């Protein structure tokens, strides 16, 4: 397989091609009629998926460094290149994205009934934006992708969203922009500082990484970190920057919610892993920042779960559950142990699958009943057994049932963080209780209890198309629950490398059997 890929020079062109294909597709799709637009969009996303799958074999992630690094000329006067690269972490994020996009397109076939060409074109543009964020290794390029992604999402929510879509889309846009604009200033300041130290003006990630400790930057490092932190924390979203999420999730069309939850939120954590912390490890691991971040992460876990519990709207519930789940990811990232970081990555991927599936399911039931009020359902397990079964499985995955994907991430995060932050981890662990509380309660009110609403008695069960949408996610959920090792192995070198950058001098291998004083006796 690898030989085949090598023979066609796969590694040389794949990254730019991955970025170009969707946008080119978008231009075509935007000009087509509705029916054709759907098909072409699906074809484009499937092609994208197939193309990206080669990365799994062709990218050697064992070194933990960036592979396939290619820098194309762009704006040399400003030290800006169109530089792309991929490592184990971004590989997973890219694959997650490319896997989800065909599903999103397919899942939208019935949901979207107006202005289809525009819709599918925007989805494709969004694909480029998201992939770009994950493979950009030039800070300018990264920033451009980071922002460009906002526009399609803004339109997706604003045009095809629910009742309150106008408010939600604007809030989403401005909230996100608020963080990223400050990051922009920080990036520029870093470039300047690095240029002072080296005499080279460059936005290259590696250049900045190497010179983030330049004398001129050390003094302002806390401010720079703060700017990065805000940008990423809003995206994650960390408590208390999360309030755009429930609105955006609820109002977005199904595919929008799926993408938001599965990919967009991950950009925040990805940003921390890739940029914020490696750039400023000493700030990120100062007492104060550790305290604040870990507290916020833990608050997010518990708070998100508690608030999710009392939501009357299923989508809002899932939105708040994302706050809770991503709290785990943040905790793991800051733990900076192999287990913690790997766990955080698994949470990111796993959450992408399970929450994505949840949103698809909610969308499917919404198409049938045109409501997302939990109270409007009840007892539908009898009418739609397959839907209920899948919903249950996905909910359980989200709860973190061992054997399904959610558990792996949460378990690793908690194991990993326990060493660094025992108390916080202890509190975070209560999240497993609350997760069960809110999801099972919701599950009960939706599919169990008495089927007492006549309009629920005639809901048709899932169609084949919908099953096709859900099947890959379900397979992923189970596969990652039972055999996550290949994924973990792909990411481990990158995770270790991250830890080396984040905590220089600390042994990467987490386990050191602490023969404590009491044991010596």
């Amino acid at each position, binding site marked *: 397989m690898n030989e085949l890929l090598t023979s066609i020079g796969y590694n040389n062109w794949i990254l730019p091609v991955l970025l170009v294909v969707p946008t080119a597709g978008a231009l075509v799709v935007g000009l087509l009629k509705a029916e054709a637009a759907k098909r072409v969009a699906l074809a484009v996303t499937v092609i994208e998926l197939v193309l990206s799958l080669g990365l799994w074999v062709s990218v050697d992630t064992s070194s933990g460094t960036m592979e396939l690094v290619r820098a194309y000329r762009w704006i040399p006067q400003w030290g800006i290149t169109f530089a792309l690269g991929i490592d184990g972490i971004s590989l997973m994020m890219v694959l997650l994205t490319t896997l989800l996009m065909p599903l999103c397109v397919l899942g939208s076939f019935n949901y979207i009934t107006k202005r289809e060409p525009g819709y599918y074109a925007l989805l494709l543009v969004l694909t480029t934006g998201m992939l770009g964020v994950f493979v950009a290794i030039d800070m300018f390029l990264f920033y451009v992708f980071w922002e460009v992604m906002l526009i399609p999402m803004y339109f997706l929510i604003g045009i095809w969203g629910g009742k309150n879509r106008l408010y939600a889309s604007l809030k989403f846009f401005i*909230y996100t922009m608020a963080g990223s604009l400050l990051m922009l200033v920080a990036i520029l300041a870093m470039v300047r500082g690095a240029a002072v130290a080296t005499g080279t003006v460059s936005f290259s990630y590696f250049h900045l990484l190497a010179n983030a400790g330049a004398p001129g930057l050390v003094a302002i490092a806390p401010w720079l970190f703060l700017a990065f932190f805000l940008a990423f924390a809003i995206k994650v979203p960390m408590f*208390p920057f999360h309030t755009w999420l429930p609105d955006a999730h609820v109002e977005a069309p199904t595919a929008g919610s799926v993408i938001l939850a599965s990919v967009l939120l991950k950009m925040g954590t990805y940003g921390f892993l890739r940029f914020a912390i490696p750039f400023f490890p000493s700030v990120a691991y100062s007492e104060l920042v550790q305290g604040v971040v870990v507290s916020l992460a833990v608050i997010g876990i518990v708070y998100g779960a508690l608030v999710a519990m009392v939501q009357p709207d299923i989508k809002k519930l899932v939105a708040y559950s994302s706050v809770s789940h991503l709290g785990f990811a943040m905790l793991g990232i800051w733990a900076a142990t192999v287990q913690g970081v790997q766990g955080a990555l698994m949470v990111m991927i796993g959450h992408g699958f399970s929450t994505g599936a949840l949103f698809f399911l909610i969308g499917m039931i919404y198409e049938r009943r045109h409501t997302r009020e939990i109270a409007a359902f009840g*007892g539908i397990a009898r009418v739609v057994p397959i839907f209920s079964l899948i919903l249950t499985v996905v909910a359980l995955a989200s709860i973190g*049932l061992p054997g399904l994907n959610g558990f792996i991430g949460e*378990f690793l995060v908690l194991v990993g963080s*326990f060493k660094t932050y*025992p108390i916080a981890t202890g509190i975070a662990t209560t999240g497993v209780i609350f997760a069960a509380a809110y999801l*099972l309660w919701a599950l*009960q009110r939706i599919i*169990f209890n008495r089927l007492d609403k006549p309009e629920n008695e005639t809901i048709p069960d899932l169609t084949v198309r919908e099953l096709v949408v859900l099947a890959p996610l379900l397979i992923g959920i189970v596969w990652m629950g039972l055999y996550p090792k290949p994924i973990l192995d792909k990411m481990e070198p990158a995770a270790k490398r991250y830890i080396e950058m984040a905590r220089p001098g600390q042994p990467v291998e987490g386990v050191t059997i602490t023969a404590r004083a009491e044991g010596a006796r």
Partner: protein
Amino acid sequence: MNPSWIWLTIALPFIGFLVNGALALAKPEAKRVVAIVGPGVLLAAFAVAVGIFAGLWGNPPDQPLVFPLWAWIGAGGLEINLALQVDQLSLVMLLVVTGVGSLIHIFSVGYMVADPGFARFFAYLNLFMVFMLILILGSSLPVLFVGWEGVGLCSYLLIGFWYQEKANADAGKKAFIVNRIGDFGALVAMFILFWSLGTLEFAEIATLAPTTLAVGGATVTAATLFLFLGCAGKSAQIPLYVWLPDAMAGPTPVSALIHAATMVTAGVYLVARTSVLFAMAPLSSAVVAGVGALTAIFAATIGLRQYDIKKVLAYSTVSQLGYMFLGVGSAAYTAGVFHLVTHAFFKALLFLGSGSVIHAMHHAYHATHSHDDAQDIRNMGGLKRYLPTTFILMLLATLAIAGIPPFSGFFSKDEILASAFGRGAEHPIYYLFWALGAAAALLTAFYMMRMMAMTFWGENRTGATEREHLHEAPMVMTGPLIVLGVLSVIGGVINLPAFWPTPPHHGLERWLEPVLAPAARLMPVQIPHGATEYALIGAAILIAVVGLVAGYRTTLAKPITAAQQAPEEVGFAKVLFHKYYIDELYHSLIVRPLVGISRFVLWRFVDQGVIDGAGVNGSAGLMKSLGWLGTRLQSGQLGFYVIVFLVGAVWLLHSVIR
């Protein structure tokens, strides 16, 4: 049979689950296939278990046999294989679980055949077996945890099997969430163990812990206490016992299988599994014993005033689980496991028997379209005439649970009480535990007999027309009962005490010795000998007899009124009837405040009010207000514009003068 075939015991029920699950979704009316596949896979698994057991009988391994299936999680130093562990302890559990499980599966065929969810039921039941076996066979804490949570899930699904009733769905959810509280403890325990030992494999824990950790140290104490929290959740101990009585909402075979014989004993099993750790932590052991003893007496008192036949049994189960913890808390791990086994026999029998009774009652009421409660023992009475087989078998089980020699319960319970008493020599608090246990034994005998008396003796209160329709269950149901009856009677044989005239003595103890030896070295079992021993035995028998007689006499002393006409309970009886109002207490102290705080404080106030209202929209509003102010200044009056201009001019000019 080679023990490496052990995976088959899991694979078989899993195949059953797949088949039955597919049928449940696609062709729920194919009950015949389900009736064959469901119990069939279990019997096959049991056969495999027996085969493996037989293979190891002659030459038991002194080290656990671990069979890795595949590498599961690997991150840094944390390498977890999905591996199965075969040793003496897991084999005992394996036999009990597959054996009793098979019987209950068979019983279920008869019991559930009329239910439209027949296939779904067996799918769940098979899935439960899968997870239960993973729990038993898992070679490390995380793998065990897979089963641990999985059985919780199945318990949830099966309790809420008839999900159309809100109460059932509620009960299922409650079970899951309360279990999760325990799981929180289990998780934290794992974290502590991983960071202090660097492993989560049972075998490695057993070897590393004594050398790495300090006996009685904070680490091991904390780890074991958290572990016990997990056990308390799964095995329904104070304060997490509340879910188990509610779990009776599930079909009766489920109560028998999950909530009596297998899953709820997982906590005891886990303590035995990690006995080394508990043995290193005397404080934790005392806590385990104390909680066990308290639970035993506490649940027993509630059992005194219950009228739902399954609720009585449920509280009895909680109480008996308390015994088991009293045993393992007294370092008598064998005794705990022993009671686990015998309890599995007689409690499964009791539940299935009650199932038979309910089946009959339900039939009767169904035939006459009566809406009376088929599970209320006040509606029964005199059933021995209609259900003779069931009556006899349940009576045997009652004698067993009451501790009448030579029934199985006598031996196991006696050994627990003796060990607790024996530990009293070292830590006097154990005398108190023993006393509580003894009192609980008295109450057990009393309420069990009360239940039996109200059900089978006296006048029949079912109703004149309904009475015609009462009859014994079919063979497919009574058959398993009979097998369990035999086991309840002779089950004690596996671990006869030394004073018993006939060998084999201490069979189970010797069998388990390789597994429990490390713990025993740290904290040996203390069994009193000689006169004390005999006095204790005598007392135990006396207590049992007194309890039984008193139970029979007081129950039948005055006529019993049927449930519908029954008077309100008064005084302490009312408190007992309402289970000390613990559920209400939890509800008003924890559940409602939590929901209220979440809804009104966190969501409405913090989220919508402070962050969104004041923070986000507030700053947007502030911007707009400032902008509006600017608009007002833009008055259209040129004079004012000039003034503003000049303000700027004056500022700029003066800025360069200084």
